């Protein structure tokens, strides 16, 4: 072992990853002791705050980490910050969530941090191996968190569906990676680009089909049509805080990873993958917007709207230039804020009413709960791209990028999709502002999902009521949860009226790939 060459490790550059790893262990230990229920969420928030601080500290650094397994640049850090923000809001939302209480707040926090760690690794990955492991580290905690609401059969179904479809996506991706490795002889992004570019193998069928399989695998994760069928079911079945996290953070990390993989490693093939990704974007815009029209469940509606929004964002990757990346980063941040503003309201109304995530749960809150009505209104209007919100500015940048990248027809598709989307976003707003508050109805709580029908009779399990259902809504938690929604909504409007800080931030991130 004399010639063991230890890799040089830049601990400062790796510090966000290290902080998250240590944080997972710290939060997990909470479960060992009899501590007040707020300790684990508070620790999770602390870990996320420290990690965010370290990311901001490393902002502006540009270097390869540990034998170029990871790339430290603003693009990866931007995705990490979006994921960390989404995780922080999710932690607040999950504080009294029955699913998180049943899983144990410590375990739930550890799973959440594990997923964030996967996102940070994925967004920074510069090697096929670290890319794939980052993606799995992101997905596996999500499968578990989706299934963690044991009282709802749909939750278990959602976790299982996500696991099966996610595994198919991962397998496809891995097959594509194998073909790319076979053609280029390397797993390193830079070396793949060099081998494909200089070796003149960019047009080889092996490379093309490998690229196609990689695109399909990532499209599963990004819920791009026609690989989207799982999205509405999983979104609806998962506990709502988990859905919020999944919808926002996964997209940010996976889109940045997609951009890095396609624009760095597969850069020599740009002319080949551009039309394919453009077709995916167009199909997503059409399928997402049409699918959302008839939905009564808010989570399904947001699932379909997420498919359409993913189509818009993919346009930023398709054009393969700096403007596109900047527009993508800006839109990811704006999408995070506006979607979380809506999900906060869905979570609160799910706990307050018996309508679950049905649109009727929002009826009449315009008069009775303005602190909830405004975030959902602003969020929906921003998703629809109305001027004065960051959603409008984001769409403007995306369309500008498509024009600059000679994909003007994709820009036109974004505009038409946005017009169609108004139909379902405004339907929600009509329920919020124009309907009277409905009478409450009583529905019994369903049995534990996954338990056999005979189980109650033979084994007689004692089912414990979840603390959330026992306790009246605590004022403190309500302020915290509603406050998170209000902060997201205010930020959405603020960045719509004065977008300069977010634009500068996105420009920093977009230009760091030096295309």
């Amino acid at each position: 072992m004399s010639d063991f060459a230890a890799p040089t490790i830049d601990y400062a550059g790796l510090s966000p990853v290290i902080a998250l790893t240590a944080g997972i262990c710290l939060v997990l230990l909470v479960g060992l002791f009899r501590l007040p229920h707020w300790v684990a969420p508070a620790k999770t928030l602390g870990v996320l705050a420290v990690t965010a601080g370290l990311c901001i500290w490393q902002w502006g650094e540009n270097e390869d980490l540990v034998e170029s397994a990871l790339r430290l640049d603003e693009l990866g850090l931007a995705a990490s910050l979006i994921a960390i923000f989404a995780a922080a809001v999710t932690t607040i939302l999950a504080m009294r969530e029955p699913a998180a209480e049943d899983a144990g707040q410590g375990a739930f926090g550890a799973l959440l941090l594990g997923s964030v760690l996967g996102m940070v690794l994925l967004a920074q990955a510069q090697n096929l191996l670290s890319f794939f492991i980052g993606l799995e580290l992101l997905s596996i905690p999500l499968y578990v968190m989706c299934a963690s609401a044991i009282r709802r059969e749909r939750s278990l179904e959602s976790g299982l569906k996500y696991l099966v479809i996610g595994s198919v996506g991962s397998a496809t991706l891995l097959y594509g990676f194998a073909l790319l490795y076979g053609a280029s002889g390397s797993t390193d992004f830079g070396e793949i680009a060099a081998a494909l570019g200089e070796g003149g193998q960019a047009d080889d069928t092996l490379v093309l089909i490998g690229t196609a399989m990689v695109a399909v695998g990532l499209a599963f994760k990004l819920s791009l049509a026609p690989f989207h069928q799982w999205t509405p079911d999983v979104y609806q079945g998962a506990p709502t805080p988990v859905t919020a996290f999944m919808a926002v953070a996964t997209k940010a990390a996976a889109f940045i990873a997609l951009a890095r993989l396609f624009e760095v490693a597969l850069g020599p093939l740009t002319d080949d993958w551009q039309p394919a990704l453009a077709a995916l974007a167009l199909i997503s815009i059409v399928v997402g917007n049409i699918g959302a029209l008839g939905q009564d469940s808010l989570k399904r509606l947001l699932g379909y709207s997420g498919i359409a929004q993913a189509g818009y964002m993919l346009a930023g990757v398709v054009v393969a230039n700096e403007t596109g990346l900047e527009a993508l980063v800006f839109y990811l941040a704006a999408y995070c804020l506006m979607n979380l503003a809506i999900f906060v309201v869905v979570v609160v109304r799910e706990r307050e009413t018996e309508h679950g995530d049905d649109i009727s749960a929002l009826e009449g809150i315009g008069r009775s709960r303005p602190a909830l009505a405004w975030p959902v209104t602003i969020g929906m209007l921003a998703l629809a791209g109305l001027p004065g919100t960051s959603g409008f500015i984001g769409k403007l940048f995306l369309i500008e990028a498509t024009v600059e990248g000679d994909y003007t027809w994709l820009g036109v598709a974004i505009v038409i999709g946005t017009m169609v989307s108004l139909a379902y976003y405004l339907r929600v707003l009509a329920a919020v502002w124009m309907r009277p508050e409905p009478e409450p109805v009583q529905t019994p709580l369903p049995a534990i999902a996954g338990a056999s029908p005979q189980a109650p009779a033979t084994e007689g399990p004692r089912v414990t009521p979840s603390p959330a259902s026992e306790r009246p809504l605590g004022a403190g938690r309500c302020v915290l949860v509603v406050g998170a929604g209000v902060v997201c909504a205010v930020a959405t409007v603020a960045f719509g009226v004065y977008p300069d800080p977010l634009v500068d931030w996105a420009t920093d991130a977009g230009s760091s790939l030096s295309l």
Partner: protein
Amino acid sequence: MKEVCFFLGAIGCLGGAIAVIGLRNPFYSVLALIVHLISLAGLFLLLQAEFLAAAQIVVYAGAVMVLYVFVAAYVGNVEESLWEPIPGQRWIAPLLGLALFAELSIAIIGSGLKSLDTEGPTVELGFGSPEAIGRLMLERFLIAFEAASLLLLIAAIGAVVLAARRRESAPPGVQPGGEHVDSQPGSPAGIPERAAG
């Protein structure tokens, strides 16, 4: 000799894989999967990846398959229909599978990579040895190696979270804060109604 070994391994591999999906008894399917995995280990050996072949046999053909056998024995002989129960997928799924097969065949046959027709690169002795693999893991792929160990930790946490769903009657100390209130034992109606508002 090399050719004989290759075709033996390849036939075992394909035969095993087809048998996994073609056999009606899940127990036989598991056994066919073992044949498939061992043949695959033989192919790895031909490629001078000794460590990979050994790991494949120990971990997959050994440990993981024991798990599968247990599950198959526990669930019992469920005679599964060979036909896809969902009518829409009965024809679409094989068609898509065939399309993928054609696509991959075109990729491999149509590839212009020169090294595909040769014996492959000549590698030095000890190329696939545990020492070489260990060195790669601790030098070049340190991050991937460490992240994979974290992945195992997270998977273990997830397994505990999902398995604990049945331990509802565990003492309150299990949950942090111990705020769970046990309802009366043996009452199936102990499923509480969610308090309104």
